[in-house]
């Protein structure tokens, strides 16, 4: 069948997936259209509720890239600090790492294997 990708323990077909997504999506849309009766457009219900404060202007609300995932990097500090330290940008280290890995592989391949 067209679009059937055998993976050894199952299969994947993009066509079937799309059909399923379309079906589920239409069901969802149908349910959504039923909707809440009391909702009306252009009333107070439209506005977002941010802990009761007025909404910020759009220019200030844009989150710049270095602040996204700040929490993640802060939490994984113990992992990130040595990792970033490893990337020194020093050309000696570049060649050094190559030699280190070559030495390890030479031991693995040359002695054991």
């Amino acid at each position, binding site marked *: 069948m067209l679009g059937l990708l055998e993976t050894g323990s199952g299969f994947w077909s993009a066509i079937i997936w799309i059909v399923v997504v379309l079906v589920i999506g239409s069901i969802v849309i149908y349910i959504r259209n039923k909707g809440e009766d009391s909702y009306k457009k252009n009333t107070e219900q439209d506005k977002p509720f941010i802990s009761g404060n007025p909404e910020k202007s759009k220019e200030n609300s844009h989150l710049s890239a270095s602040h996204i995932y700040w929490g993640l990097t802060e939490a994984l500090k113990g992992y990130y600090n040595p990792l970033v330290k490893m990337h020194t940008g020093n050309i000696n280290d570049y060649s*050094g790492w190559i*030699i*280190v890995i070559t030495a390890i592989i030479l031991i693995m391949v040359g002695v054991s294997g």
Partner: protein
Amino acid sequence: MKKIIFGIAFIIFFSFLIVSAINMRTFGEPTYSEMDDYFIENAQSETGANNVVTSVVFDYRGFDTLGEATVLFTAVVGVVALFRGVKK
């Protein structure tokens, strides 16, 4: 710390190279030489050149030579491109 790791790795690498040098076949006595004997015997009759090295370079392995001339061309274009607009 890093220097020590690198130093140890360098020593290991170097010792493996030494091992390979000692394990290499004896200097001056090639074990197999079929390909080269073919070149030595047939180069004169096939290509008409007295210099076997040249006939290997330009006939039997001519494509290498093209690649090698290309490397030189690439380097020249690279150098000229790097210093383009340098007037003096």
